[in-house]
């Protein structure tokens, strides 16, 4: 009896993440690049609890006789695959990749990247807006990777983006959330979900990012470049849940001075 009540109250702790009409219980989205093997990829995804994973669209390697397909390991019936346009440097190129990804027949979703610079992999927000508008008009569910600029984020929302995905810090840098104020700003002003994408380096980065109130986090290198990716995947699952719960619970106020935890009354003479 107590058990069932507790289970019920647990399910009411938080609403699920809804993007583009699709519901996700996990607020963690995983990239699948740079793991040691397909097996490690899948183990990490499983340990992370992620339901949505990103994939890239690339040429089949015709010289590799028996290249095993990623889809043999990441069953699209178990995981929701989100094709990205990583490596695209113009709106046209990104649109081309998005269309190819959709043609695979899994969904009309795309993680839209239009990169502006090879060294930093920062987005070209002008081109990103152009590509977002085109793809939304073509019926895509567009999740654009962008920087942490509020004005661009508002325009992406206006352009029909299903979520806005600002970076925490550059892709693969592991610098963590460099500008928490900007991310809070975005969250406070957007109606669509805000998913922080890129830059998270370790569990506390994920935790502090979720504490800003954002709806989810997308990460890849923090797991793949960890010494033990599967264990780090588990750490990230816990950290995202921890940060979300702490956000919902409402933290204590910070104070400059101390306040005792034990009663000051009742001391002996």
């Amino acid at each position, binding site marked *: 009896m107590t058990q069932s009540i507790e289970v019920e109250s647990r399910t009411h702790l938080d609403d699920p993440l809804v993007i583009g009409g699709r519901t996700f219980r996990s607020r963690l989205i995983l990239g699948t*690049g740079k793991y040691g093997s*397909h097996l490690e990829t899948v183990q990490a995804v499983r340990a992370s609890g992620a339901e949505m994973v990103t*994939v890239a*669209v690339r*040429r089949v390697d*015709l010289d590799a006789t028996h290249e095993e397909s990623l*889809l043999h390991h990441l069953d699209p019936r178990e995981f929701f695959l989100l094709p990205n346009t990583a490596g695209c440097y113009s709106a046209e190129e990104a649109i081309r990749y998005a269309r190819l990804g959709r043609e695979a*027949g899994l969904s009309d979703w795309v993680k839209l990247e239009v990169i502006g610079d090879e060294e930093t992999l920062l987005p070209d927000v002008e081109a990103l807006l152009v590509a977002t508008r085109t793809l939304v008009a073509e019926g895509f569910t567009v999740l654009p990777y962008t920087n942490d600029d509020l004005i661009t984020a508002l325009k992406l929302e206006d352009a029909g983006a299903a979520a806005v995905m600002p970076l925490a810090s550059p892709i693969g840098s592991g610098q963590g959330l460099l500008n928490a104020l900007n991310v809070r700003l975005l969250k406070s002003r957007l109606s669509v979900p805000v998913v922080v994408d890129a830059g998270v380096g370790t569990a506390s980065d994920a935790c502090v990012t979720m504490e800003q109130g954002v709806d989810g986090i997308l990460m890849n290198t923090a797991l793949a470049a960890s010494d033990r990716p599967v264990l780090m995947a588990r750490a990230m699952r816990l950290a995202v849940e921890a940060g979300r719960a702490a956000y919902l619970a409402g933290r204590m106020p910070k104070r400059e001075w101390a306040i005792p935890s034990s009663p000051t009354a009742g001391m002996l003479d």
Partner: protein
Amino acid sequence: MLHIDVNGKRHDVDDGRTVAGLLTDLGLDGRLVVVELNRQIVRRNELAQVTLEDGDRIEIVHFVGGG
């Protein structure tokens, strides 16, 4: 014999070969790849209808791990 370009490399196929036939030649499963012919996507249900022509530029892509 036709000279076409597949994923950036020269490739020779017999006259009248379809895209589906090309995939078979390459040992690829048409359900796991997407094909672009001269910058136009070939829908999966048309793979067996479209015949290749000399100078065609083919891109065959699939999903790989990515972030």
